[in-house]
């Protein structure tokens, strides 16, 4: 579905990604782990098209209607319309815009782009109902301004609600577990799991193994100083939980 080759990206003068190679197929769940500052969040933002990052070399190809497209030719909104979703680590507060309006605008933009009929507010409210129930969210959420005054857990649930509404083909979830207590984490995981299918893929960016108890990955990658230094199965995450990142970093620097 998506193929990243030798990706280098910088913010200002600082190179953060230094040659990432990663292939994700439909139906797969990948976890990207690594210590703070290794470039995990940058990778997901570059895929989603954040304007602050400059790609200096490498490529990302993304399959749209079984055709390979150069992802860098698409604006951020076009990437979203083509099925890429970024669940933010720090969702942005937008006072004055109601959650409902935001969701409806977003949903209809994506419908329009893909030639599907748009939905009116009344039908959209009905459409949202089971999704709110899945995430154990009160309907009152819809009429509050986007993320404004939400608790950390509410913000993360709101991200997953957006994901459930937009039904992406590739979901990038950036530290979705941070700021969640165990109950909220379970609800969020339940939401993500229920959206999984053989047609879509998920990339989980996380510092801790905890989330992976609830959303089980097929592949685990360790990112360090802008490169993937180790890939493995789900057991790699458990090993990291037990031993930390130090041993891998040591092995990596010895190889150098």
């Amino acid at each position: 579905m998506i193929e990243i080759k030798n990706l280098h990206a910088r913010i200002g003068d600082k190179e953060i990604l230094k040659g990432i190679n990663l292939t994700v197929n439909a139906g797969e769940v990948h976890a990207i782990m690594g210590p703070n500052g290794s470039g995990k969040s940058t990778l997901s933002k570059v895929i989603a098209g954040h304007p602050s990052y400059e790609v200096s070399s490498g490529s990302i190809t993304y399959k749209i209607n079984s055709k390979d497209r150069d992802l860098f030719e698409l604006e951020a909104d076009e990437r979203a319309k083509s099925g890429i979703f970024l669940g933010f680590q720090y969702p942005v507060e937008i006072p004055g815009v109601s959650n409902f309006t935001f969701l409806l605008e977003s949903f209809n933009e994506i419908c329009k782009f893909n030639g599907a009929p748009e939905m009116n507010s009344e039908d959209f409210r009905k459409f949202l109902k089971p999704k709110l129930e899945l995430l154990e969210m009160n309907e009152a959420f819809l009429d509050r301004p986007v993320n404004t005054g939400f608790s950390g857990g509410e913000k993360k649930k709101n991200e997953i609600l957006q994901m459930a509404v937009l039904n992406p083909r590739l979901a990038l979830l950036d530290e979705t577990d941070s700021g969640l207590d165990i109950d909220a984490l379970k609800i969020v995981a339940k939401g993500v799991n229920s959206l999984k299918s053989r047609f879509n893929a998920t990339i989980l960016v996380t510092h801790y193994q905890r989330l992976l108890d609830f959303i089980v990955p097929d592949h685990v990658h360790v990112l360090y100083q802008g490169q993937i230094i180790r890939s493995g199965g789900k057991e790699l995450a458990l090993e990291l939980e037990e031993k930390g990142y130090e041993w891998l970093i040591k092995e990596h620097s010895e190889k150098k």
Partner: protein
Amino acid sequence: MEQVLLNELIKNTAEVYKNTSELGASYNEAMKNALEKFKAQGIPTKKNEDWIYTNISKNLAPRFFARHSEIVQDIPAQVIDRRGMIIFNNGVFNRHQSVLPEGIVIDQQVASTDFFDSFDTLNFSVSLSPLFIKIIKNTILDFPVTIVHLVDDAGVNKIISPRITVNAEEFTKVSIVEIFTSTKNSIFQYTTNSSVNFNLKDRAFVEHVKIQIEAAASTHIGLTKAVVAGHAQFKSMTIDLGVFTSRHNIDVSVNGEGGEAHVNGLYALKKSEHADIFSVIHHNAAHTNSDQLFKGILAGESRGAFTGKIQIAKDAQQVNSNQLNKNLMLSKKAHIDTRPQLLVAADDVKCAHGATIGQLSPDEEFYLESRGIQKDKAKRMLCHGFAMDVLFKIENPKIQKLAIKLLDESFEKTALSEMTL
């Protein structure tokens, strides 16, 4: 230059005084006295500390609208509910068209002797049909009263001088929206100099929303003044949607314990429009509260100014007062001056003030884009949200809806193409 204009204005008051006999001898006398006072006060220049951001004489009309117009026109489109509408044509109260709801009556006219500034003085001295109304004790209106100030051909190149005094008796609750506009917004040039005065008795609640959408080339000078008694609440919203030059004076005195003032506003400016907001809140009693939120959106080459004064008297202890001014700049050529001023004589009060000037943040834009919303639309939504945050403070839902509609028509549809940041 101001002196020349002043002399001309004084001379031109003669045509006003031909038509004031209806007001009675003593009121006429007071008008003449006020004119003498105005002569002494003069037209403020930029040398005056309160006027340093605005050259007000630049486009003032030289003559006064001095007739009683009784032409009955169509009911203005902005009227929300015909059970309560007060219409002014060229600054003159239209008694034929206006409808006062049950519980609101014409009140006895009282001449003023105490004025906010020279424009208030001038307004009193030339206002031909000052309107005095009383909201009778215990009146609670469940629909808003609309006041429309409409300027037509006859008002072109004139000074329009509407004057309104509202006395709200005990236990009343009323929402009022006041709209300043003209019949041909694109071509008219005139000056509005209005004075709207509220007296709130104990436990009265008055919401007042002022919307300025005058003709593009005109000048608007307007005073909103309120005196608030114990446990009464004055809720004011000033919305300026852009004009050649505007100056809004807001002067609220909270004089009784438990009294509250909520003074909010939005200015949304484009092209070379200029708006100057000057807000003063006096806390003259203990245990009084006030909060102020003024937001500005500035596009094109527009200029805005905000001055927010909070004055707390010596014995006014346990006062709570908040003030915030936030500005969103949409263009590199737009300009804003903002100054908070606290004058506190009491020693046990809570006061906070703040001012921000910023641009749309790339992170906010990206958040919307990452949800499939195009950059341009994302910017529009963020601007809209920035404005809504303050318009949501309008308590009456019908007035809120009208304000949102007018913001869209007078600003969002046109100005957001001028974004250069």
